[in-house]
């Protein structure tokens, strides 16, 4: 038995990914849950508009943090500010009593704002936009679409690619008359198509079963999904290039997937996280897809309102996918570097 235990420790010592899961993951989870697992909103980004904007802004208590006032703005402008995600709460002072428009697509912020405004009694009218009943499913379904795409893009794709390496057929493909781009596109295209079908299916089921509204442009939603897919497929390909076995690929994919689930604002609100943890969230692609999917489905936002997440996600797609293709290509293309051109064979 002693020999068996010793052997197991020796194997574990050399299996760095399992060690990382055993040692690093618990520490990371502890830190993340300590600093990120927080539903308490301390600050709510608030705008105040209308003739009494400055007066009302000065009177607003915590947790409302006034980021700007505009005395000339109308009630429609107030609604637009919420739709464009400029603020979570916009107080319109042109009505009596003032109306607080609350962004229902930010569920925890809206719940906190609703409770705080409720304490003001008749001094303010609360109008929760885009999710009037503060349904959790309305916020979760758009985010779940992103999570499913992440799952297929990273885990399933990396497993599919590593299977080829493990079986020795990647070596075979490298010496077959395929261009590296043929192999890469041929391997990724099926996952792209399957993920797209899943995205359509989950969205339709979400709308049909949970009654989640789809207020925006389906094309904009599809565009966001396609860009996001390039990022997650790129991550999947990158994982496959550093994994020799399917087990290693799954371990690495879990290490990549875990922070996306916890820090993208999909479960715990970004506003409630410690700043350092929140910035990790800002580096994750799912954070931006959640903003796009919730923006398009719930708020009916257009491209002008969602330019920031679209720009960041496009940048990520370019960087990650290019890096993935270059690394994968390195495994496939050594033949092109032959000193004697293969098509200029010299007869004896």
């Amino acid at each position, binding site marked *: 038995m002693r020999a068996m235990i010793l052997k197991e420790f020796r194997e574990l010592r050399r299996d760095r990914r399992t060690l990382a899961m055993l040692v690093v993951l618990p520490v990371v989870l502890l830190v993340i849950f300590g600093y990120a697992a927080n539903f308490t909103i301390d600050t709510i980004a608030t705008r105040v508009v209308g003739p009494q904007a400055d007066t009302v802004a000065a009177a607003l208590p915590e947790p409302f943090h006034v980021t700007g006032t505009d005395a000339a703005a109308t009630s429609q402008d107030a609604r637009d500010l919420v739709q464009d995600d400029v603020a979570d709460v916009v107080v319109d002072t042109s009505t009596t009593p003032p109306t607080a428009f609350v962004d229902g697509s930010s569920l925890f912020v809206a719940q906190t704002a609703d409770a705080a405004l409720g304490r003001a009694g008749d001094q303010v009218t609360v109008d929760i936009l885009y999710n009037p009943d503060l349904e959790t499913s309305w916020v979760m379904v758009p985010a779940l679409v992103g999570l499913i795409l992440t799952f297929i893009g990273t885990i399933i794709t990396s497993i599919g690619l590593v299977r080829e390496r493990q079986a020795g057929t990647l070596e075979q493909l490298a010496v077959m008359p*395929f261009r590296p781009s043929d192999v890469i596109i041929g391997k990724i295209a099926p996952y792209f198509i399957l993920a797209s079908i899943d995205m359509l299916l989950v969205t339709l089921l979400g709308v049909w079963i949970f009654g989640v509204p789809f207020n925006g442009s389906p094309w904009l939603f599809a565009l966001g999904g396609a860009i996001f897919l390039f990022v997650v497929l790129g991550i999947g390909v990158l994982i496959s290039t550093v994994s020799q076995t399917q087990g290693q690929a799954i371990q690495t994919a879990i290490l990549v997937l875990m922070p996306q689930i916890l820090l993208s604002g999909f479960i715990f609100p970004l506003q409630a996280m410690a700043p350092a943890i929140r910035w990790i969230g800002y580096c994750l692609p799912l954070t931006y897809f959640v903003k796009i999917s919730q923006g398009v489905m719930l708020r009916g936002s257009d491209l002008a309102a969602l330019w920031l997440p679209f720009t960041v996600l496009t940048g990520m797609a370019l960087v990650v996918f290019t890096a993935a293709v270059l690394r994968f290509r390195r495994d496939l293309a050594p033949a092109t570097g032959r000193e004697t051109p293969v098509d200029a*064979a010299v007869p004896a």
Partner: protein
Amino acid sequence: MTGPTWGVHGVTFRYGRATALDDVSLDAPSGAVVALVGGDGAGKTTLLRTLAGALRPEQGTVTAPPLTDIGFMPTTSGVWRELTVDENVSFVAAAYGVRGAELRRRRESLLGTAGLDEVGDRLAGHLSGGMRQKLAFCLAMLHRPTLLVLDEPSTGVDPVSRVDLWRMISQAAARGAAVVMATTYLDEAERASSVLVLDEGRVLLSGAPAEVVAQAPGAVFRTAEPTVRSRAWRRGREYREWSPDPTTGPTTGDGTRVAVDLEDAVISASLAKEAARA
């Protein structure tokens, strides 16, 4: 058989600090079978992968046809286990542009010769080891390459399948393909047109099997009781013992000097190298 001679010249390849090939040259004429022989880690697979185009050598030149004219069978057999036999053939045929009546003809001919014509709808992963190796050979041969690179095609294959495989290799060479194959079976290597013996990435011996045998250093003696264990190896019920001096054999047992065969020659060369190093 006239035709191009493929091969490598002065090739060196390193994995990090470890030198896998050190100034290795190999000629593979059309219609000939070249056998690569060597122990574990000798550099056989690296040399084959370099020739097939899967690795780029650090030094030296590779003379090879375009990828469309190379057939490669990796040591892991390189068949898609989740595809059926027919689907494997169809995929490889599509990659090399073999289609229509020509594809049907070649599929029937190759699978028939390999004895796989009755298992076309079976998953490659469900084939026996020997059948899988034969399927891999069929895939490598499907587009009738002018250079056929085979990495230990008969390892782990039963004796009957080995005969089938060797017949198919001979047929490929007879049709004009240059065949370069690694093998651990010296009886197979003896049937090749030429043999290249690798040891720690360097060429130990090379030439036609008879030439390789003639290059064997020292002398080999048959004995029932070896004098120097580190220079002896078993052959059936008796021992062979190598001596660097042809005039001095084992001092015990009968110590009869024997005519060396390829196996004796390869072992003798390895022992001579070790002795020189010591």
